[in-house]
C-alpha cells in the first residue's frame, strides 16, 4: 500500500527526518531476510530510540499502515518480509545492554542488542546467557524472543521463552505494556515468544543470566545408524543424565564438514553425536561413566572425549562449520526446521531422507537430538525456478511428515510466511481460529506484520478435528448451553485455590484420567481434573518424577491455571482447552520445542479460568528426583490491556470470571 504523505510527514516528525527513508535502494535492502521471501516495503523507519516506538505506532495505526518490526533479519521463515508493503521498523539501533546484575542474575537489554555482544559482556564476569542460536553472533535478543529461538543448549536450559523475566512491549495502537513473570495472570512473555512481531513491538527485555560452568567435557561418539544415536539420547534421559548439549549429524553432514573444516570427524559412521557435560568434576566423572556405558550399549563405534580445550574447540568448530560446508556448494542453503517427539526421530528422519531422495535433492541432516529438533540443510539455486519449486515442495512434504509423526512444523525458526500454509496441516480449525482471535485482540486493524503465522482461508484446509473424550464433550455441551442461556461459567477443580461459592460451577473434576506416562519421551499426559496427589502416586508407581509438589492440594488444571505454580509453566509441553464458545483447541504435545503459532500453553497458564477451561496437559517428567516448583498463595492477578482484549475476543458476553485490577504499565 502507498503510505499517505501526511503519514510520512508525521512519521518524520516522530522519528526524525533522516530516519524515514523511501528511496529505492533503502527499500530494496529491507525487502528480505534469510529466507526466499523478498517484498519491498513502502518506507523504512530507523527507530532512533525506545521512546520513539509508541508515537510511530500511533501514527501507523491512525493511517492503518502495516508495519514489520525488523532487527538483524536472520530468520529462515520470511518473518521480516513486508507482504502488504507498509513500513519496516528497523530496530537495530536499539542495541544497548543497559544493565548487568550478577547479584540477582539478570541483564536488561534493548531488543536490538546482539546475543554475542551480551555473551562477550558476561564472560569476564563469569556468567552466560543460556539460549544459544547458531546465529548468536549476529541475531538480536528481541528477534530471539519474537522467534522463540534456541540452540544446542536447549535440552538442558530451554529456549528464549524460559530466559526472559520481563519485557516492555508496545501494542500496535501505541499502548505500552509491561510484562513480568512476577505479575501473575497468563504468561504473556510466553505468548510473545514466537509471535514474530504480529502482536506489537518489544522495546526492552530483562533476561536471566546464569553462572558459567567451570568444568565442561565434550565427547564425540559415532554410531552405525541414526536410530542408535537417538536411542542413546533417550537412554541418557532415562538415566537422568542431561547433557548440556546434544548435537547430531548424519553421514552426509560429517563428510561435508570434514572436507571443509577437518575437525577429525570419522566419516565412516552413519551418525555422529557431540555431547557435552557440565557440573562439578565429580558429577561429570559419574555422568561420563554412565554416558560411556549407554553409548557402548547402543553399539557406539567410537567414543572420543576431547582431551583439552583445543580439542573441544575443534569438535565444535566442525559443528559450527556444518552450515558453511553446505553454503559453499550452492547459492542457497534452505535450512528446514521440524520437531517430533524424541522417540519418533528415527522414523521422521527416515521419512525425510526418503523425501529428499525422491525429489533428487542434495541435503545434509543436522539435529538437536535431545529435543527431537532436526534441520535438513538443502543446497540449491533459487535462480533456477524449477529447482526452487522442487525444494519448496520437498520442504513442505518434510514438514507434513513431521506433523504425521506427532511433531510440529517449527521447533525454533518460526513460521513466517514460508511455513504459513503448512500450519493448516498441523492445527485444526478451532485452534487456528483462536490464533486469529489472539491476533485480532492485540491488533484489530491487522497492521502488525500482517499475513504471517496464520494460514489464509484455512477453513477448508485445516486439519480435521479429533473427537473429544466423553467428559470433555459433556463439558463443551455444558458451556454451549450456558452460553445460550447467558449463565455465568465459573471454572473450578477441587475448589482449593480459586475458591468459588457459585452454585453450579464448571468443574474439571470429571477429566480425571492419567492418559499416558511415556518413559521414552519422558512426558505425562493427564486430564486437568486429576489431583496432584493422584498424579504423584501414579508417577511414584512408575518411578518417575515431576516438578509438581507431591503433597500438593488441588488438581493439575488448578496448579496450571491458578498462577500459584509459575515454575511449572516451562514444563508444560501441550495443552487442550475448551473456549468460552464451546470450541476445543489443541496445542503442542510430547514436543520439547514448538515455535509454530502463538504459545497457547502460556496463554492458559495462570489465566485463572478467565479464558476457558483447560482440559488436558502434557508435561515433562524425569528419571531422577528434581527440585519441586515453589507454590505461591492464590491471588487474583491484575489484568492488563492485552488480557482484556483477548478475553473480549474469546468471551464477549463475559460469562467466564471477569477480569479485575489494572496491571502496572
Amino acid at each position: 500500500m502507498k503510505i499517505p504523505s501526511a503519514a510520512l510527514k508525521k512519521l518524520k516528525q516522530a522519528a526524525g527526518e533522516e530516519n524515514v527513508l523511501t528511496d529505492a535502494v533503502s527499500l530494496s535492502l529491507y525487502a528480505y531476510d534469510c529466507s526466499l521471501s523478498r517484498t519491498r516495503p513502502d518506507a523504512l523507519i530507523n527507530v532512533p530510540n525506545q521512546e520513539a516506538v509508541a508515537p510511530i505506532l500511533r501514527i501507523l495505526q491512525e493511517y492503518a499502515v502495516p508495519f514489520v518490526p525488523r532487527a538483524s533479519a536472520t530468520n529462515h521463515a520470511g518473518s521480516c518480509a513486508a507482504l502488504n508493503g507498509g513500513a519496516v521498523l528497523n530496530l537495530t539501533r536499539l542495541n544497548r545492554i543497559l544493565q548487568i546484575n550478577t547479584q540477582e542474575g539478570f541483564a536488561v537489554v534493548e531488543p536490538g542488542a546482539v546475543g554475542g555482544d551480551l555473551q562477550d559482556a558476561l564472560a569476564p564476569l563469569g556468567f552466560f546467557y543460556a539460549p544459544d542460536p547458531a546465529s548468536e553472533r549476529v541475531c538480536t535478543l528481541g528477534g530471539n524472543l519474537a522467534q522463540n529461538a534456541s540452540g544446542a543448549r536447549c535440552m538442558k536450559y530451554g529456549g528464549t521463552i524460559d530466559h526472559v523475566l520481563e519485557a516492555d512491549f508496545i501494542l500496535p495502537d501505541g499502548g505500552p505494556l509491561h510484562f513480568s513473570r512476577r505479575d501473575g495472570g497468563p504468561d504473556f512473555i510466553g505468548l510473545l515468544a514466537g509471535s514474530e512481531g504480529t502482536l506489537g513491538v518489544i522495546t526492552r527485555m530483562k533476561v536471566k543470566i546464569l553462572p558459567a560452568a567451570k568444568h565442561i567435557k565434550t565427547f564425540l561418539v559415532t554410531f552405525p545408524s541414526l536410530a542408535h544415536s537417538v536411542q542413546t539420547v533417550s537412554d541418557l534421559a532415562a538415566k537422568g543424565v542431561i547433557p548440556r548439549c546434544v548435537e547430531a549429524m548424519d553421514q552426509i553432514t560429517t563428510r561435508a564438514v570434514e572436507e571443509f573444516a577437518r575437525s577429525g570427524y570419522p566419516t565412516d559412521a552413519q551418525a555422529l553425536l557431540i555431547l557435552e557435560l557440565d557440573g562439578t568434576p565429580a558429577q561429570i566423572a559419574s555422568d561420563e561413566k554412565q554416558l560411556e556405558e549407554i553409548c557402548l550399549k547402543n553399539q557406539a563405534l567410537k567414543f572420543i572425549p576431547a582431551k583439552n580445550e583445543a580439542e573441544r574447540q575443534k569438535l565444535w568448530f566442525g559443528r559450527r562449520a556444518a552450515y558453511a560446508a553446505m553454503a559453499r556448494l550452492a547459492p542457497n542453503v534452505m535450512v528446514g526446521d521440524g520437531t517430533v517427539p524424541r522417540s519418533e526421530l528415527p522414523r521422521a528422519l527416515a521419512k525425510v531422507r526418503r523425501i529428499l531422495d525422491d525429489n533428487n535433492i542434495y541435503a545434509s541432516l543436522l539435529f538437536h537430538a535431545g529435543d527431537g529438533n532436526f534441520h535438513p540443510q538443502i543446497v540449491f539455486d533459487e535462480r533456477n525456478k524449477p529447482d526452487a519449486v522442487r525444494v519448496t515442495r520437498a520442504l513442505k512434504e518434510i514438514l507434513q511428515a513431521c506433523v504425521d509423526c506427532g511433531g510440529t512444523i517449527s521447533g525454533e525458526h518460526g513460521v513466517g510466511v514460508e511455513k504459513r500454509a503448512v500450519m493448516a496441516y498441523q492445527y485444526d480449525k478451532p485452534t487456528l481460529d483462536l490464533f486469529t482471535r489472539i491476533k485480532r485482540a492485540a491488533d484489530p486493524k491487522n497492521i502488525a506484520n500482517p499475513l504471517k503465522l496464520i494460514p489464509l482461508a484455512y477453513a477448508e484446509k485445516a486439519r480435521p478435528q479429533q473427537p473429544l473424550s466423553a467428559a470433555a464433550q459433556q463439558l463443551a455441551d455444558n458451556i454451549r448451553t450456558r452460553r445460550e442461556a447467558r449463565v455465568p461459567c465459573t471454572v473450578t477443580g477441587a475448589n482449593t485455590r480459586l475458591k468459588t461459592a457459585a452454585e453450579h460451577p464448571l468443574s474439571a473434576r470429571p477429566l480425571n484420567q492419567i492418559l499416558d506416562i511415556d518413559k521414552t519421551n519422558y512426558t505425562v499426559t493427564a486430564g486437568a481434573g486429576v489431583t496432584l496427589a493422584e498424579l504423584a502416586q501414579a508417577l511414584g508407581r512408575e518411578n518417575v518424577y515431576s516438578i509438581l509438589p507431591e503433597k500438593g492440594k488441588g488438581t493439575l488444571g488448578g496448579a496450571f491455571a491458578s498462577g500459584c505454580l509459575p515454575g511449572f509453566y516451562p514444563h508444560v509441553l501441550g495443552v487442550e482447552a475448551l473456549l468460552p464458545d464451546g470450541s476445543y483447541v489443541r496445542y503442542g504435545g510430547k514436543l520439547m520445542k514448538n515455535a509454530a503459532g502463538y504459545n497457547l500453553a502460556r496463554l492458559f497458564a495462570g489465566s485463572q479460568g478467565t479464558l476457558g477451561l483447560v482440559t488436558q496437559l502434557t508435561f515433562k517428567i524425569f528419571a531422577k528426583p528434581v527440585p519441586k516448583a515453589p507454590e505461591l498463595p492464590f491471588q487474583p492477578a491484575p489484568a492488563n490491556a492485552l488480557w482484556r482484549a483477548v478475553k473480549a475476543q474469546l468471551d464477549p458476553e463475559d460469562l467466564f470470571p471477569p477480569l479485575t485490577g489494572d496491571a502496572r504499565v
Partner: protein
Amino acid sequence: MSDFRPLELDPLHPKRHLRTLHTPFGPRAVYDSASFCTRCGSCQQACPTYVLTAEETFSPRGRNQAVRLAAEGKLNPAQNKELLSRLVNSCLLCGRCTQACAGKIPTAEHMLELRRTLNGRALPALLHTLLSWRSRRPGLFRFMVRAGLALRRAGAVRLLRLMGLTRLPGLAWINHADDILPARTPAFAKRLRQAKIPAAPQDPALIYLPSLEAEFFMPDLAASVLQTAAPKRGAHIWQNTPSGLFEYVYGNVRQSRRLVKNLIRRREQTGKLPLLTDSVDVYLFLRRAPQLFERWPRWQQKAREFAEHVLFITDFMPKKPARAAEIASPVRLDYSALFRREGEPFAAAQKTLKTLFKKNFVECLYKDADTPAFGYGFVRHNLAERVCMDAVRSIARTQTGTVFTLSGLSALELDFCLKQFYPYAKADHFARLNG
C-alpha cells in the same frame, strides 16, 4: 548453477570490469558470486560500518544484495547513482565480512565492480588527479609531491588551514593529509645513504617495490625493509613505480592491468627476482594479479608465475628483531588491509609477535576494529574517523603500548588518532620492529 548465463552489472561496458573473480571455491562471475550470498547475516556484525550505523545500506549483506539487484535490473544504477555511490564508497574494502562468511563471498571485490559500473570518483577530484599522475606522469607526480612537502615545511599548509581554505569542499582532504603525515619527511635517497644501503647493488637478492608512503613520506620504513630483507646483497629499488592498486581500487581496471603487465615485463628483464613490497594491500593485490587477465591466458600464466614470487616483509623478519627488546608494553597487530584480513602475512606477523612478546601480545577480539586501509580516510572521512576511534578504544581498553600494522599508510592514520586520543600508545609498521 552452470545452467545460467550470468547477468552482468554493466553489459554496455564489459571492458571496465573483471570477467570473473577468483574465490576460494574457484572462479565465479560477479553476479554468481553475489548470488552465493544466502542473506544469513553472519557478516553483519563483522562489518565496522554496519556496527556504527546499524543500517542495512552500510552492511555487507546489503551491499551484496545491491549488486545482485543491479545485475538483475531491479535497481537501476544510473537512476540511483548517488545512493549506490554512498553504499559503495562507505565500504572499507577490509574483507572482515569475507572472513566471517561461510561462503567466503568477496564483498569488497563486488563493491569495486559496482564502483566501476557507477563510473564515479570516490576520492576528492584534486587528490585523485594528483595520485593518478603517479602512473601517467611519474616525473610530474614526483615534482608535485616534493613541492607539496616543501611548501608544507615552509608553513603554506598551516596558512591555508588558518585562512580556512581547507574547509572548501574540494580541499578538505588537505587537512587529513596534513594531520597524518609526519612533520619531517627526509628524502628517500638520502635516508638510504644514511642507512648505508647501496642504491645499485651488484648482485641484488630481490626487487623492492616501495609503496607510495614508504617512498615519499616514510623513508625510514623503506630503510627498515631493505635492512631486514636484503641486508647483504641489497635489492633493486623500483622507485616511483605504481603497482596498479590505486587504479584497481579508485580508477580504471584497464590501466591497472597495464601497470601490472609493466611490472611483470620489468621483472622478467631483471632476471625474475622475487618482488618484495612493504604494503600488505599491494601484496594482496599482486598475489591476486591473475584474475586481471582472465581474457588473456598467456598473460594469466605469466601473472600466476609473477604472483607466486611476490613477497612480504613478514617472510624476512628475523627471530630476534633489533628493536623487539626495547618494547616492554603490550603489543598488538592491526589487521588493517584491503580485501581480506586472514592468510599468510597476518598469520606470520601474528606468530612473530606472539613468539616475541608472549603474554604481552594482545589478541584481538571478534569485534575489535582495524584502521581503515588504503586511503579510506580520504573517501569517507567521517566514517573513517569513527572506525579509527573504535580501534583506539579497543587499544586503550587493553592498555596496548605499540600497535603494529602491515601497511605504512595505516600506521600513519592510526598513529595520528592515537596521538590525539591515547598518546600512551603508538602505531608503527611491522617492518620497523627490526630497526
